[in-house]
């Protein structure tokens, strides 16, 4: 089940947990063996701590949820000092999800993490829709995205995963731009902007009005985007979006993903990611497929 994503990142299996849905990892230790999954994506880290947005921050939608957490996080320093040490005793890979409001913030965060051995890779989030000033500009313009990626590339030798926003006319252009700019792998998708109205109060349900849609509702969109991107890039792709079960994960892998991230499912079933790992194992055995690599992109189209 091991997967080599290149750029020095080898996972014991292709299942990761998505940023913002798994805390700093350690919170899930009571529910599952952290070593049973390929790796953990941290909550998005910024240079300074962020408090996040006013409440309500989440609302349920049909087969999904909206969130407008606002990238609340302890900040990169507190992560290194308080969170990371607790993860050291685990063998699972730790991938730091990073973001900034400016390119220099991105590179500063990346630099701070560069010397941390416990951090095995970076995931550059150019796509979070919740920050007014921040990410979204980078996430929807190929040239801006490339700038961020090139800048972070210069300061890190770690594996650099770049996470794309689905909120674009043509995801292929974004993928090609970040590949050229030096991404070792591409993860997609982040959440899709959405809104729910409280019909009784005639107000948006979320304090920030809009939030990002995640969960099974977005899975068909995410699978389609992974498929499209797999046709135009050669770096590995990590599929994200509505994965609840192994079969969901297999859809992404067959469509072209080398690994997957389990997100919202962690809220519904804290050990969802481990169940996905086991289900993929069973499938490979039943279908007599020797490795994940053989399954990746094996779609008959």
């Amino acid at each position: 089940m091991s997967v080599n994503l290149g750029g020095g990142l080898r996972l014991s299996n292709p299942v990761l947990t998505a940023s913002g849905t798994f805390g700093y990892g350690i919170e899930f230790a009571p529910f599952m063996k952290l070593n049973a999954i390929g790796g953990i994506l941290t909550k998005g880290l910024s240079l300074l701590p962020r408090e996040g947005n006013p409440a309500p921050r989440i609302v349920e939608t049909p087969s999904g949820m909206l969130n407008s957490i606002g990238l609340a996080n302890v900040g990169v320093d507190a992560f290194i000092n308080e969170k990371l040490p607790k993860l050291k005793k685990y063998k699972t890979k730790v991938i730091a999800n990073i973001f900034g409001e400016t390119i220099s913030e991105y590179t500063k965060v990346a630099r701070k993490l560069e010397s941390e051995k416990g951090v095995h890779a970076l995931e550059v989030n150019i796509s979070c829709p919740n920050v007014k000033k921040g990410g979204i500009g980078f996430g929807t313009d190929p040239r801006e995205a490339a700038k961020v990626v090139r800048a972070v590339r210069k300061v890190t030798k770690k594996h650099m995963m770049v996470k794309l926003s689905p909120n674009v006319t043509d995801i292929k252009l974004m993928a090609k731009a970040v590949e050229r700019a030096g991404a070792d792998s591409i993860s997609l998708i982040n959440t899709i902007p959405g809104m729910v109205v409280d019909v009784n109060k005639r107000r948006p349900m979320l304090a920030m009005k809009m939030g990002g849609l995640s969960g099974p509702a977005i899975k068909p969109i995410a699978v389609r985007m992974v498929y499209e991107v797999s046709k135009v890039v050669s770096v590995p792709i990590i599929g994200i979006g509505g994965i609840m079960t192994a079969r969901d994960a297999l859809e992404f892998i067959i469509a072209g993903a080398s690994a997957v991230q389990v997100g919202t499912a962690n809220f519904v079933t804290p050990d969802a990611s481990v169940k996905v790992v086991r289900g993929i194992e069973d499938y490979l055995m039943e279908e007599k497929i020797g490795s994940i690599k053989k399954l990746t992109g094996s779609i008959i189209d």
Partner: protein
Amino acid sequence: MKNASATILYNKPLTSGYYKLGLGWKNKGVRPGHFVMLRVSGGSDPLLRRALGVYDVLRRGQGIELIYKVVGKGTTILSNMEKGECLDVLGPLGNGFKKLKTPEKLIMVAGGVGLAPFFMLAKEHAKHGAKFLMGLRTKAEAKILGDIKATGIKVLCSTDDGTLGTRGFVTDLLKKEVKKDSIVYACGPMGMLKSVAMVAKEAGACCYVSLEGAMACGIGVCLGCAVKTYGASHKPGDTTYNMVCTDGPVFNSEDILWDELG
């Protein structure tokens, strides 16, 4: 803290849309104010778990009892489930109410299904002279008070329509009962909690409230259930967010920025 499948022991209607649910779910260390999160569907509609307070611990930790009110999709599905069916239960969650040094000063204030966390406290502190104030809409709902009355605790009721006890708000009762050295524990709708907090403050009493908030995970990782609180200095500028699921659901009412709450 664990996530485990639980068998429904019973799931019986009480009155006016209230149900009592018994679950075979082993536990230890459950305290008043703790809650659990139930997965009411195997599919994705509804997707998220539902939070319910623990009403009682059954059979020396072999099970738990919950009380819930049918208000929407999830609780409707729950109310249609039957004895013998299974569902996933995550818990025990939250901080719970503090152990009391002076239980004789305790005044519990509940609005509707907000009585859930108080049955265990009532059992424990009836003998110490604690009081229980309950706001209901109408007399018919009083059936949900049966267990609590049976503890022998002093119960005072208000109803919206005056069909039982005082007509009006439960805070009117509180105004009469509260003293400077009272310890007020409250659970119920946001508007009620806010009034309770004000009444307690005016009287100079300590007040702890059990808050509700939209939750996805229940374990402090989604950061969805944020509530704005004062920092250690308690100065207007020094504020932060706390998570209802892990920092709460019980908060000192003085810590809450009430005006920022939906």
